[in-house]
């Protein structure tokens, strides 16, 4: 038996390896790499592969940025199921709000608390 800790480590690590290869081999900038992974996450959810991956790897699939695309799509699809086409737009942030709201709140708190340092 392989526990969820091992699968999360391996799957999470492998998603990061894909990111590293996009940067080093395909020579993408970090921003392009992250955008590609987000798009990949939402496509994978569209064909229904990402949720099983989360069941398999837990945080190994929910912590990488791919899960951001997945949960946006997931929210949109859940609302679309209930309300039809209009739900595609309204449901998007239903699931992802925590990541963005946490980033905004902690971003502001971080700005209040810290100043940047030009050290090595």
């Amino acid at each position, binding site marked *: 038996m392989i526990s969820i800790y091992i699968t999360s480590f391996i799957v999470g690590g492998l998603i*990061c390896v894909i990111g590293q290869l996009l940067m080093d081999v395909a020579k993408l900038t970090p921003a392009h790499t992250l955008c590609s992974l987000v798009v990949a996450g939402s496509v994978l959810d*569209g064909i229904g592969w990402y949720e099983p991956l*989360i069941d398999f790897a837990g945080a190994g699939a929910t912590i*990488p940025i791919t899960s951001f695309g997945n949960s946006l799509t997931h929210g949109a699809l859940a609302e679309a199921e209930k309300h039809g086409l209009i739900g595609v737009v309204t449901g998007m942030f239903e699931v992802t709000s*925590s990541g963005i709201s946490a980033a905004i709140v902690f971003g502001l708190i971080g700005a209040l*608390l810290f*100043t940047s340092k030009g050290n090595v």
Partner: protein
Amino acid sequence: MEQEKYAHLEKELSPKPPILKNVIKAFLVGGLICLIGQFIALFYITFFDFTERTASNPTVATMIFLSMLLTGFGLYKKIAQFGGAGAAVPITGFGNAVVSSAIEHKSEGYVLGVGGNMFKLAGSVILFGVFSAFVVALIKTILVKFGVVSW
């Protein structure tokens, strides 16, 4: 000298990125961050009323909080220099992009500086996440309507 000839010379003499080493480091750092996330999720499942699935929301928020602390104390850039994509791809990298921009632009004030620049780096991730989600969900909804696939 021709541009192509120089490009050739440059390629020959410049140090190449140690891809294998970088990939291994990205795997270890990224895996470790996800493992920490799994432990935090376990904490929320055990002590609060979260299921495996719903625990991912507070887990993500906690990871971003940790990322804020590491960014503020100047440690995240060191982790990123070592781990590369291993530090950039997890949600902590998203947090780092937001928090570092916010800290950097503090000198221009909280409205124009912090507010205006917070999503300078992370904004494109949100844009493409939202837009791809929109397209994917739209296609799937239409396909379901026409009975090609089911939910």
